[in-house]
């Protein structure tokens, strides 16, 4: 907390470029982490929790207040034909990564893509 501590400091030192490189390198590695291939679709609706395989294409009709459909196509999932008030779940579009989820608050429905490791004793 002295004026020398302000005056003597530069905006950037040559050493800091190494820090920038390290941060960019580390963040790229973290971003490229693969969560694993999704294997199952976990649907929580009025009937409780149900797991569906996403290996083949189909349309699921969940047990919810406002009618809607869940479409599975090419290991991707989306909500279509939703009659809930705001259509936010429909607007989420496709999900295809492990851990991705679509939540419909008016219907109290949560759909999540899970891998083999995503299903543990508690969720089963």
């Amino acid at each position, binding site marked *: 907390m002295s004026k020398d501590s302000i005056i003597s400091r530069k905006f950037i030192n040559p050493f800091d470029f190494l820090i920038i490189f390290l941060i960019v390198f580390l963040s790229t590695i973290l*971003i490229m*982490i693969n969560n694993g291939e999704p294997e199952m679709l976990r649907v929580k609706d009025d009937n409780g929790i149900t797991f569906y395989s996403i290996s083949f294409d189909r349309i699921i009709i969940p047990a919810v207040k406002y009618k809607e459909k869940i479409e599975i196509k090419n290991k991707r999932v989306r909500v279509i034909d939703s009659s809930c008030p705001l259509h936010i779940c429909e607007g989420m579009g496709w999900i295809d990564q492990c851990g991705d989820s679509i939540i419909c608050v008016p219907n109290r429905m949560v759909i999540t893509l899970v891998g083999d490791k995503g299903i543990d004793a508690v969720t089963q």
Partner: protein
Amino acid sequence: MQSHNNKLFIASMLLSIAIALSMLESYIMSFFPMFAFYRIGLSNLCLLLGIFLINKRLLMLVFLGKIFIPNLLLGTLFNPIFIMGSSGTSLALFSMITVFSFKRSSFFLISVSGALAHNLGQCIILFFFMPYMLSLKLYGFMMLNGLISGSIIAYISFELLKRMNIEYYFNY
């Protein structure tokens, strides 16, 4: 000798700017409901300036005010987002003071270390709510964001202190 009133004046100004920036941040993030928990860390600018201009006791007051007052005004006190924000800010302040203690450290290094620590603090809390690997992936994005926001904050504070009449401030 720097007068106590002078330091108190600067501390109160920094606190009010920190509150305004924190509230602005919350307003900006309200447009992205998926990332409502995330804070860019703009208000770290005030902590960074405080490290240079005021003593540690006043800095702690600015820090506590920055954590509690915006959340009190927004009605988000003690909710999960508050816990994430406060843990991030605590780590950021600790990190910036540590890096500042090295005499050759630049503005950039101090600010970026604060921004990265801020994001790390948020991510540590996220580990309790999200899958571990997903949180790590998210931290990758946060690191890049922290690098950019940290650089901007470093530049603003560097220019501000350069333009400030430091001789006057420290002598009266």
